[in-house]
């Protein structure tokens, strides 16, 4: 598989069929997914429940083996263990050890990276502070609330200062301030040159932080591209000026009329991601199996 250095993740025809105990196909969770994620970007995976987002992430991590197709992540196959040195993963539900407290958790995962004790201690302190669990760092995780568990999950994903961070619904369960912080964190990571892949249902968040997105439905890729391009409506031209006096406005309208156009709205020209998302999913339901191409492109 050709991987250029700026492509952190490349998938080609990635397909996953879950099988039952006897090896009979049960669910086709992902069908022929081909995407690539570039170094330094924030990539969003969107889609309704059960559309295959988590499956995709697990395939990337080698937790699942593809039924067909190929994955390359940081230039290595998904099953290569050494790629994990530079990856951080926040699972959908926090699969952590409930009998450890926050400090022990981070220390344990730090040890798995063979980090020296001093670095481990320092990182643990920093991360606990960052996710604001200082007050609860000595309590066992089984006593944590959902949001607190998400926070410690995020901290463990960042313990090795990874280059590529995979976040499965990072904001689920977080309070508004928590999600705000999460967004800031993602932008901060991007500024430091890290690559972030995230799944989310909070479209406003995705719209704010993601450079590019893919929308999945029923395991199929429906939309794939830059957020700005996808949301730009080519049928509309937006003119932004300083405030026009009414007579100038009339003249502009006259000019437009001469060219057969008319003013539709004097405001807010881009669609929201929410509209795109809903449209995509509706279209996909109407014409199953087809890639939905937004009218603009």
């Amino acid at each position, binding site marked *: 598989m050709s991987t250029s250095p700026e492509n952190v993740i490349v998938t080609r025809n990635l397909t996953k069929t879950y099988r039952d105990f006897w090896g009979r196909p049960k669910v086709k969770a992902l069908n022929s997914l081909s995407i690539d994620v570039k170094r330094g970007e924030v990539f969003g995976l969107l889609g309704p429940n059960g559309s295959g987002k988590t499956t995709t992430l697990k395939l990337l991590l080698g*937790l699942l083996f593809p039924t067909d197709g190929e994955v390359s992540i940081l230039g290595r196959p998904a099953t290569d263990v050494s790629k994990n040195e530079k990856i951080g993963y926040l*699972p959908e539900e926090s699969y952590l050890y409930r009998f450890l407290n926050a400090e022990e958790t981070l220390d344990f995962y730090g040890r798995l990276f063979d980090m020296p004790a001093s670095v481990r201690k320092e990182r643990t302190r920093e991360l606990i502070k960052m996710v604001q669990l200082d007050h609860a760092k000595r309590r066992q995780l089984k006593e944590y609330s959902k949001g607190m568990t998400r926070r410690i999950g995020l901290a463990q994903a960042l313990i090795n200062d990874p280059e590529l961070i995979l976040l499965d619904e990072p904001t689920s369960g977080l309070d508004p301030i928590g999600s705000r912080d999460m967004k800031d964190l993602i932008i901060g990571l991007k500024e430091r040159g890290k690559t972030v892949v995230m799944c989310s249902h909070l479209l406003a968040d995705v719209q704010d932080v993601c450079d590019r997105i893919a929308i999945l439905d029923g395991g199929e890729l429906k939309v794939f591209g830059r957020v700005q391009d996808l949301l730009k409506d080519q049928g509309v031209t937006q003119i932004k000026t300083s405030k026009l006096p009414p007579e100038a406005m009339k003249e502009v309208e006259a000019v437009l009329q001469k060219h057969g156009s008319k003013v539709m709205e004097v405001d807010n020209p881009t669609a929201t991601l929410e509209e795109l998302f809903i449209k995509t999913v509706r279209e996909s339901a109407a014409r199953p199996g087809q890639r939905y191409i937004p009218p603009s492109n």
Partner: protein
Amino acid sequence: MQLSFDPRPFDLLGGLKVWGVVCLVVVALAWGIAGLLMFLQSGAPGLARLIDLTTGLIRDFLQTSPRRVWALAVHTFREAARKRALWVFAVFAVLFLFAGWFMPELKQSPDMAIRNYVSFVLRTITWLTIPVVGLLACWGLPEDIRLRSLHTVVTKPVRRQEIVLGRIVGFLGIGLLVLLIVGSVGYVWIVRQVPENFGQVTARVPIYGELRFLTREGKSEDEQGMEASGVNVGDEAIFRQFVEGNTQARAIWRFEGVDMNRLQNGQLILESTFQSFRTHKGKVDQELLGQFTLVNPKNGVRVPLQTFFNREFRRNSYNVTERNSRGEGGKLELKDEQGRTVDLAKDVLDGGQLDVEVACLSPGQFMGMARPDLFIRLPDRAFLTAYGKGLFSIFLMLTMIVVLGVMSGCFLKGPVATMLTGFIFLVGRLSHDFLQQLTSDKLLDNPKLQMRGRGLLESLYRLPTHLGPQIEVEDNTTQRVIKAIDNIELNALWGVKYLFPDFTQFDATAFVANSFDVPWDAALLPNLATTIGFCVPWIIVGYFALKCRELEAK
């Protein structure tokens, strides 16, 4: 006070050879089957994947990080501690508190009492630690996978064998800690049970010899030209053979490496546990009379010793030096058959080999002997040494169980893993002798010792044709084919036998309880070899299972 089995030195090289052969066969079979399946499934790329897996094994194991293994081990330990799995061991302490009430008081026979206490302690420790640590090992990984906590671990740079090894080391740590604690409790308990007799609690160190017999005519071969054996007095098991009184019949032990420096204060002590078999009553409480003759096979010096009475069911300790001391100052005085005075060190033990001939002097009575029934007693070791070695044997068995449990957990769910481990343990514990008999190398190779009507097919042929086992089947092509197929079966059985470790061998109770030291070459070495021999392949199986397993698709 006697061993009912024969502690023979372990043949390490021979064991290694068998191990190598079995491993090769298993690997070849596994490779063949896996290759075929993968080829059928995905053609040439399937084969490539198999090769990839194999080279990956070597690469992965070379990159094992001890620190990660340690981190995982500590984690395993902590998990067990936090989940309070170890409270079970409190039961142990309670058991001891009350056991004293139920143990029979054996004031009249301190030997017996000590034996009872020691066996009780070692058995209790075994049967308490094995199930608990075994269960922990069988459930550890499957639970980790079920709760998906292992998934976060495998997204870190952790290799699969590190997970397997980390688990094993962690559980072994638990096992070791528990063994040390309950072992100490047990030791203190034994000491407190037998305060006045504690001097007798010791660890005897024997030198065993090779045993042969002379017929009642004093010949080393019988009429059929077979090697002479003792008389079978009608026991079904022929562990002991009997020497007839007042005849030329002798039992002769040959000891190697007997050296004055190794002896206890320069004293030659013979310890025996012969059986007496009476053909007529005589005086009922009269013990049988026996006599030792020391022979140096190198220079032919023969020294008949003072006679002895054989006390049954007890240790008979015959101190050659004390019993044959006369003259001024109780000096040892040995006379050879011609009546010349000889020196123990210079004449009798010269060359390091010593034959001890045993004769029964009571006419018409028999004395029964097996190889471990006579030994030269070297200086004792402390009882704690033998006890510690006994615990070490238990630890080795624990290691086997832990590795087996962790391996099963790599591809099975908790309950099934427990069942598999339990099954292999029980087969290895209960029916190893049976498998051994069915397939012992002797049976395969030596036609004289072959079971009559042996193989499956041959038996099927004999049954309807009413051919008794004594009659040989006629020698024709059909019969040869039948024999050939039967041989394959028996060889397969021979192979299967080696897949089930003999768990009985780890029980050192017989040594410790009978106040023997646990020998290195007859007990610890084979135990260690068995443990390593089984655990290495098991770890590799676990690694493969975990590697090829799609953790997420449960």
